[in-house]
């Protein structure tokens, strides 16, 4: 996820192919080094959706279709007065 752009594909590959897996690992580390959080969207039995935060490439399920990187959470600004919605 990028401000002003939305989703950007950083890398694509098959983890079963060593060369492509290396590229995925490099992209993964680059994003985490840049301070991003990584999440894997998952679907449970019954159709319930949730996400799993992953801190290293080994934590990514082998059958994951994608990993989404997004900026790390920070405490938001807290103006004293309400803002119109």
């Amino acid at each position, binding site marked *: *996820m*990028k*401000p*002003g*752009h*939305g*989703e950007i594909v950083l890398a694509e590959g098959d983890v079963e192919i060593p060369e492509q897996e290396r590229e995925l690992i490099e992209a993964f580390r680059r994003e985490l080094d*840049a*301070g991003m*959080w990584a*999440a894997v*969207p998952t679907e449970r039995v*019954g*159709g*319930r*959706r*949730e*996400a*799993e*935060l992953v801190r290293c490439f080994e934590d990514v399920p082998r059958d994951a279709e994608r990993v*989404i990187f*997004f*900026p*790390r*959470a*920070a*405490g*938001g*600004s*807290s*103006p*004293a007065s*309400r*803002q119109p*919605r």
Partner: protein
Amino acid sequence: MTLPLCTGGVLLVVLAWELIRVRSKDAASRAWGSLSRWARGVSRVGAPSAGELYDPGRERRAEQRARALLRSCVSELDWAMYRDLGFLRVWGGGTGGTHERASYAYLIYPHKPIVAYVPQTGELLNEYCVTFPDQTRPYGSARLPNSDDVLAKWMAITADERRLIGEANMHLPGRQLDPERVRRDLARMERWERGRPAREPDGVRVA
């Protein structure tokens, strides 16, 4: 003979001057227009990279991409709720997304605090102010598109609720969001859910 020639010459000079003047004015106007657009671009998006002008459609396209990504991640019910009402609800307390066991839930608004409330009574509990700023400002702004902000909150809450709440600034209800508006949103959500087909206990619609 001389007089008509002189008169013709003067007329030609005047016409040529008028043509040059009009064209110069147009060129100056175009140049000023470009400069104005560039200046607006700077004020709108911060500091664009060299040669990059403000693109008025970029944020709209970014939001379209963000909506598609959000839709691909959340359930059909959650997507419909966001599309129709403008916010998402997430059951709290690690209840696995089942409302029967949830003693509280969250409302996720784009670029607004997350609101915790009691589903059974509608009582508002807290506001959690949290942002996801990208300090690299890749397009001049640190702010994610609206739907990306909602997705980031949704992923962070469903993956690690405690961690997100730990990062957030907690306030009593009413700090940023008008409690009456939140209550109206809860009422809207209730009406919206009543108008939908029956659902299974885990919140998945029966097709």
